[in-house]
């Protein structure tokens, strides 16, 4: 993000310079050059627009619908809201899913935009005073390079293997989350429409989970998810455990939570270098 901010600053500088040049060319009567520079200026402004749009997109991977606060109770700090949602799901999850879970089951508004900086804030806090909080919202780690898995949040107190993402883990975690959501819904008396919609998003992509939205039963969604889960679980678990052991023995404390950076890992090609 630093890189983007920097290039935005450069673009702004360039836009200013170009404006000055256009003005000079226009005043000196050099129309061809003024025109050419104008075109440059438009291009630079377009690039600036794009860069800003990109920043916005990155800063808000979640489209936050303007939700009317359910019961305007005291708003939990964002990290606690995320902790709640992740605990319910029991697996690492992307901000979008975390927001959906929050909306489905918890009171108050969750600001999706604030999720982006959360992981960084948590890392900063951990670095300055390690283990001073009961838990941290941290990264999931890729199984091969033990680096932060893109776009996933996890809880530091989970067993390491649960935070490892191997090739089968995205599907395994999807099914596990489906079961968790289904079970949670079956326990509450009057699930909100957002909760049923969330369950349907899982059910629609699990074979045999439900005939259709109206015919959906939490128990059969959970059963179908379990059936598919059984197919992948063993292979996934053993890989996650192996990688988890490697992470515990090879990574520093902060890396265990937030991912290793550019460390050469034996057995992977690509020649990632030690840096920083």
């Amino acid at each position, binding site marked *: 993000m630093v890189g983007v901010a920097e290039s935005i600053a450069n673009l702004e500088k360039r836009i200013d310079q170009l404006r000055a040049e256009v003005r000079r060319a226009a005043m000196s009567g050099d129309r*061809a*050059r003024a025109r050419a520079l104008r075109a440059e200026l438009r291009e630079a402004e377009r690039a600036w627009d794009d860069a800003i749009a990109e920043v916005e997109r990155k800063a808000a991977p979640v489209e936050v619908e303007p939700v009317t606060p359910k019961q305007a109770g005291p708003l939990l700090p964002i990290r606690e809201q995320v902790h709640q949602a992740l605990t319910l799901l029991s697996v690492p999850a*992307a901000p979008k*899913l975390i927001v959906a879970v929050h909306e489905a089951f918890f009171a108050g508004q969750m600001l999706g935009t604030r999720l982006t900086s959360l992981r960084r804030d948590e890392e900063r806090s951990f670095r300055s005073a390690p283990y001073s909080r009961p838990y941290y919202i941290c990264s999931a780690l890729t199984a091969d390079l033990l680096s932060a898995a*893109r776009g996933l949040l996890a809880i530091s107190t989970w067993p390491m293997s649960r935070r490892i993402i191997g090739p089968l883990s*995205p*599907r395994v975690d999807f099914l596990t989350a489906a079961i968790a959501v289904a079970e949670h819904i079956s326990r509450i008396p009057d699930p909100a429409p957002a909760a049923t919609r969330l369950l349907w998003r899982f059910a629609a992509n699990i074979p045999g989970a439900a005939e259709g939205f109206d015919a959906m039963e939490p128990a059969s969604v959970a059963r179908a998810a379990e059936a598919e889960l059984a197919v992948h679980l063993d292979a996934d678990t053993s890989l996650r455990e192996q990688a988890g052991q490697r992470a515990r023995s090879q990574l520093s404390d902060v890396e265990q939570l937030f991912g*290793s950076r550019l460390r050469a890992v034996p057995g992977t090609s690509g020649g990632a270098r030690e840096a920083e």
Partner: protein
Amino acid sequence: MNETEARLARIRGAVPARDHNARTIAALCSNPGCARRAVLDAAGVDKQRLAAYIDFPARFGQSQFAITRGNAFEAQVKANGCAELLRLLREKLGLPIPEVSYDDLELVGGNDSREVRYARSRSLLARAAASGAGAGTLFDHPLLRLEIGGRKAYLEPDLIAFQLHDRFHVVEIKSFAVIDGQADAGKVAAAVTQAAVYVLALRDLVTELGYAPEKVAHDVVLVCPENFSNRPTAVLVDVRKQLTVLKRQLSRLARIDELLAALPAELTFDLEVDDAGVPTRPAASVVEALRTVQARYTPECLDTCEMAYFCRDEARDDTAALGRTVRDELGGIESVTNVLGLANGSLAPAAEQVEAAQLLQMAARLREESLMAMLRGVAL
């Protein structure tokens, strides 16, 4: 850097080369006879910027809105371990339930240099190819390479390669809608050509690894929103025809040296930007440089090349600007002025133009007569 590369670097000037992607490569192939485009593209010149600078800005390109929409749809299809994509592949292609493995090749532990990314894509795909089913099903954002005009260009792909029954398929996710099984033909054609570029690059990779090119299927999977919903659907499209065209055009581009040999040695499209990034080169001088490289304007350029408005303006008097069939019907005469002159007899035909001149004069007479007939009809 060999001689050709040094030459191309000089032509491009002191700016980084534009990246190629499947879109630019597909467009590259749409006017293979144009030396101007071949040189600009081989050198990696930013044509959009160049065209705007000489006051003929391109009027195409994707709107920010379309890009955002495309990204959102892609993210949706890939969300939650590619849940929606897996459903489609299972329903439409019979992907077995156990095959769900997903590798994200975009980031390599924070090291995103292209060499590292390419090496990783290559090694993971090699492993998958060697061990067959079960050793990898979905590969997101593999970085591929394709040789363009004698240079290896990295392709920044937004695709998933997907292995089924020991074969790789290219999955292309596009956000235009398929309504009742029909989609905008132009958009489909563009998407399919782009997918063919990926098939070709992926085939290069598997051949390097010692497999037959057919290890990569010529059927690509196109994923689009269905009807007016956001629910994705998938279709298989055969891209063999596009592959043939693509290969032929790329082999022409490979002979860029021959083109360069005919051009002035000092040719450059450098805009001579100063420290603040403000170009200082007079636009007229850029135009002059452009004119030294021959173009071959056709109306299709308007959809595929950033230089189109400049070249159209330049070709105003050129019958080819009216399209190939029109030029042929005008007896192959190249300039509009000459066509008119020959037709009304004010221009004496050169020896090889006699036949064409007779035809044109006859056409002019016919036109005259039918116009008169029409006028008489009105008078009556």
